[in-house]
């Protein structure tokens, strides 16, 4: 009998719960309890009446993210090779903004007083040049013994080639009486580029104590184990998440992409672009039949180089503020009215936002917001929009349309960045909007980009919880090898991978995961010799015919061509990193398709209203989305109201409800 799966996504405002049971998806939304998130979680579970004992329980948490962004992690020490204690602070020596004379760099998470250099050195072949001496270790221990530190990070040069010094030191650090949270770089991220690696391991030690405390408490409240969502879109046991919390640091937006991709695949559209438009920002991600990962991310100015879903964020959301700048251009964002004071129509703010523009154009109903829980002040929006329009020199309506056009052009730029700049044609993709504001903008945005189809999931507001629920168990491992020419042969690769797999399976068995049932997938990070960006390709299998290097090179050239538009078949390549993914596919309850109930939508119509589109005001039918049934046809212009979003169907767009409750929208002529 298929188990029940419960996905819980705890955000700043709401705790969302998705329950997959007997082929049905049930959703639940309740206010979060930021002071102690576990209270909201247990309250939510009680309300749904799920039998926890018979369920898989997966949790998406922003505890590590918030600890980092709010500076509430532990007091962290860093141990490095002597002479490189400041690498963490120097970073790449560049500045984020060229012309800002007042620029600041985020403070290093391990302050200089807590950074220690030990005399030891390993070279680029992994050979030990200088031993790590017992004397220096003793001195360090005596310094740390009385220091009030919560965490210690260790990052020696070239430790990814030879971890012996880091491991030796870790064993001794474990003897410290105050029991700090210890992480070593050869375990957290055995890859080259010392700044990014050191930053990653320091972030891990910084958020580690907070995350460990939270998970221990949650497990004791629930009286059971659970799995935690990682930034890569896979889940992992809570105890591994507590050891390597840096892998969960961007798990918030990951759930949404996993949920959107699952929804797209089920509906028959595996090539999607996700559009998660919230109050202050919009996340976009491109999934070409798979979820794409990256290892170069940055949170709050701190590089974090573990695998995560490739997500591009742009400062454009419902709360983005519109203004006329000194040069006379209408600018929208990146400043946001946020939730407080919020858009003008919330009653407190006095700046016109994208939400106000939507409201005055009739695209958002003053009484239908959050399922009627909140009424919007249309008159306030209108009055303030009038002031802005005077500055623009256009009518209030044209100004509101302009705000939509400008914010759409910002999002268009973000989508271009993840599609055309990476060698993908958006015309071959389906746009999947979610988040509060996404479904209001999706059709017009798709039109601008030539995207032929928009898929609005049945429950766009809890897509992240759905993604969390269905996340496979995944553990990522990597190692820098730097192989080229004669060193690059099948036996060498196989030996390296087998070694990694052995360690990995042992670690997962310790977690009581069925490591032997887990699938191992091998990947290689490859580049032209001397380049400094790598592309990830599948590792050829042992019995693949022909010369190994040629095989890898050919896959690499294809990837290079796809990504950059050219590839040189003559240039030599090198294998930089090995990547191993151990996966346990979670049996996803097949949602049962519903039979068509005919095209007629009259039963769902709840009235009509005048809505302004680019061509002018149009009488527009309003529908209650919850009343729509499979097979129902929607002809634009239409507004579909539901609890946490409004779907805008412009004139010239038609929609149909598919067997899974998704609304598939397409323009009349592509």
């Amino acid at each position, binding site marked *: 009998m298929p188990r029940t799966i419960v996905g819980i996504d705890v955000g700043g405002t709401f705790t969302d719960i998705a329950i997959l049971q007997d082929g049905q998806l049930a959703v639940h939304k309740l206010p979060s309890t930021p002071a102690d998130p576990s209270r909201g979680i247990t309250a939510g579970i009680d309300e749904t009446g799920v039998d926890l004992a018979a369920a898989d329980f997966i949790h998406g948490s922003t505890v590590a993210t918030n600890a980092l962004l709010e500076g509430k992690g532990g007091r962290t020490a860093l141990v490095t090779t002597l*002479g*490189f204690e*400041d*690498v963490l*602070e*120097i970073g*790449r*020596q*560049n*500045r984020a*903004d*060229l*012309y*800002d*004379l*007042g*620029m*600041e*760099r985020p403070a290093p998470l391990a302050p200089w007083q807590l950074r220690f250099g030990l005399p030891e050195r390993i*070279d*680029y072949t992994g050979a030990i040049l200088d031993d790590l001496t017992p004397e220096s270790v003793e001195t360090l221990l005596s310094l740390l013994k009385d220091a009030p530190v919560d965490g210690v990070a260790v990052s020696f*040069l*070239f430790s990814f080639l030879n971890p012996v010094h880091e491991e030796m030191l870790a064993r001794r650090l474990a003897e410290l009486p105050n029991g700090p949270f210890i992480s070593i770089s050869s375990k957290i991220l055995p890859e*080259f*580029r*010392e*700044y*990014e690696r050191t930053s990653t391991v320091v972030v891990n030690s910084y958020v580690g104590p907070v995350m460990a405390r939270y998970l221990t408490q949650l497990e004791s409240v629930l009286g059971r184990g659970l799995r935690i969502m990682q930034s890569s879109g896979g889940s992992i046991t809570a105890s591994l998440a507590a050891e390597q919390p840096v892998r969960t640091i961007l798990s918030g937006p990951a759930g949404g992409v996993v949920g959107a991709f699952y929804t797209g695949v089920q509906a028959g559209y595996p090539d999607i672009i996700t559009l998660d438009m919230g109050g202050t920002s919009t996340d976009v991600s491109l999934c070409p039949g798979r979820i794409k990962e990256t290892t170069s991310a940055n949170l709050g100015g701190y590089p974090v180089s573990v695998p995560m879903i490739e997500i591009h964020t742009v400062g454009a959301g419902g709360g983005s503020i519109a203004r006329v*700048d*000194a*040069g*006379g*251009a*209408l600018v*929208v964002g990146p400043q946001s009215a946020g939730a407080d004071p919020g858009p003008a129509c919330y009653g407190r703010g006095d700046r016109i936002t994208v939400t106000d523009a939507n409201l005055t154009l009739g695209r958002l109903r003053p009484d239908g917001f959050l399922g009627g829980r909140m009424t919007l002040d249309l008159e306030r929006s209108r009055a303030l929009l009038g002031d802005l329009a005077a500055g*623009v*020199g*256009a009518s209030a309506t044209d100004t509101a*349309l*302009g705000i939509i*056009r*400008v914010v759409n*052009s*910002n999002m268009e*730029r973000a989508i*271009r*960045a993840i599609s*055309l*700049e990476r060698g993908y044609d958006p015309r071959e993709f389906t746009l999947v909007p979610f988040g509060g504001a996404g479904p209001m903008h999706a059709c017009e945005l798709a039109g601008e980009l030539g995207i032929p189809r928009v898929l609005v999931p049945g429950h766009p507001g809890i897509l992240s919880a759905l993604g969390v629920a269905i996340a496979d168990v995944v553990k990522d491992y990597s190692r820098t090898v*730097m192989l080229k020419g004669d060193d690059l042969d099948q036996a060498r690769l196989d030996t390296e991978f087998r070694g990694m797999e052995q360690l990995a399976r042992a670690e997962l068995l310790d977690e009581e995961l069925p490591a032997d049932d887990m699938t191992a997938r091998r990947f290689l990070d490859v580049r*032209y010799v*001397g*380049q*400094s*960006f790598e592309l990830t390709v599948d590792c050829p299998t042992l019995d693949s015919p022909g010369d190994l290097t040629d095989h890898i090179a050919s896959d690499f050239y294809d990837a290079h061509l796809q990504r*950059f*538009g*050219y590839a*040189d078949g003559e*240039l030599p390549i090198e294998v930089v990193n090995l990547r191993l993914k151990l996966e346990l596919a979670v049996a996803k309850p097949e949602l049962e398709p519903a039979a068509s109930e005919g095209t007629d939508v009259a039963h769902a119509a709840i009235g009509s209203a005048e809505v302004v589109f680019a061509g002018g005001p149009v009488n527009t039918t309003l529908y209650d989305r919850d009343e729509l049934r499979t097979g129902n046809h929607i002809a634009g212009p239409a507004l579909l109201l539901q609890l946490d979003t409004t779907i805008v169907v412009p004139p010239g767009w038609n929609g149909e409800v598919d067997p899974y409750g998704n609304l598939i929208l397409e323009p009349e002529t592509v």
Partner: protein
Amino acid sequence: MPVDAISLEVFKNMFISVSEEMGVALQRTSYSTNMKERQDFSCALFNPAAEMVAQAAHQPVHLGAMPASVQAALQTFPEGLRPGDIIILNDPYMGGSHLPDITLVAPAYIDFDGGQELIGYVSNRGHHSDVGGMAPGSMPLSTELYQEGMIIPPLKLSDAGRINQELIALICRNSRTPDDRQGDLAAQIASIRVGDTRLTEIAQRYGLADTHEHMAALLDYSERLTRRRISEIPDGVYSVTDYMDDDGLTQEPVAISVAVTVAGDLLTIDFTGTAEQRPGCINAPRAVTVSASLYVVRCVVGDEAPANQGCLRPVEVITPRGSLVDPQPQRGVAGGNVETSQRITDVLLAAMSQAMPDKIPASSQGTMNNMIIGGHDISRDKPYVYYETIGGGMGARPDKDGVSGIHTHMTNTMNTPVEALEFAFPLRLRRSALRRGSGGDGLHKGGDGLIRDVEFLSPARVTVLSERRRYAPPGYHGGHHGEHGENVLLKGGYEEIHLAGKETLDVEAGDVLSIRTPGGGGWGAPADHDGHSHSH
């Protein structure tokens, strides 16, 4: 479609994204450490009148200098550029800055009314780590341009779509690292094609007339914003003279004088009084001086205006012909782009500090600490050239300390990771650290400089081009100066030999080069022990 507040913003987004997409293509496909890791390149978009409309500037020193490249290309080919043409150049006296910076320029056309109409031009500039000349890295202590490397006047790299492979072969044959040149030039060509395609798409989508109107409107927009901000600066004449250490050949200090006149919404930057052009390599071609000026203008008036030629319309830059900041052919310029440009910004900011004392930081490190190492890598059996610039202390700000160990003003190149460096070159890093206490004391402290110690594993030839080794970065308003920089050779790893700020030398395996970069100046008199500030 008439230009309005809304379409202006939409086109602004589109034009900037063209240059950004060109930059992405260039970085991702380029070959050398210098372009990929350090992002030493820039991309820009021009209207048919060769005015720069939008730029993705990764390096400020390229900011105002690229229009001169397009103009030089058009002057050399007065019959105009055809579809598929790409012009290549690096001649500092014909549109370039210094020889390692190679610039490509190409037209973008749209099929129109049975013929083809010019939409505008796209251009990119990348720093190639070696283009020949008397020392690896092509930034030697030269006495004339010919010693610095291969000079490329505006030539057709692509003629109506046919790439001139012979020309590429010639350029590569003149470099110590031909494979890198081949790869980097291919990346620049790929980037030009991306720009051409994207600009053509915009013209197809919105029409040629609208595209041109919005190019013009965007220039006017930047001009309006810049004028408005200039008019907020108090009117007056603000004059400063400062001295560079030397030109690398003699010990003679080199004066840079500037008088900045603010009158209403106009700014005049007059370098009259600056030293005559030097026999050494620190001469800055006028395009470089204009770049430094535009950088300061953007820092002072804000960067909300898109970086384009509209920003320069209310700014007049006067450079005496034959001076350090506008030399005559064929003076050496290798260090003008990297060192003199950096000092020009210091001097200009010092002048602006008189007008806006509570907005301008004290002097930053005032150098890029160029370190160029070349030789034959015995273990890998191939020649190599490694170029790095090293950050230092930022000057203290009126409201806070300066940042430590960071690139300021005219450069923003990233450092090469220690582990990437040792994988690639016969070098071993011994230290990469903050130079503690080197920032000047003050109410707000200057940022600290850096120390980078490089051990050589095989014999090499090294050129160091650096400044502020004698005259330290001054503090402002009672703040103390930062420490001047030091270049030290540890012979055999121990014996200290102090080097000049600008020097070429041969080193042996086991030698260590220690570059210690200047700290930033302090701002305001230091607080006494009770926490009160006092004046001296």
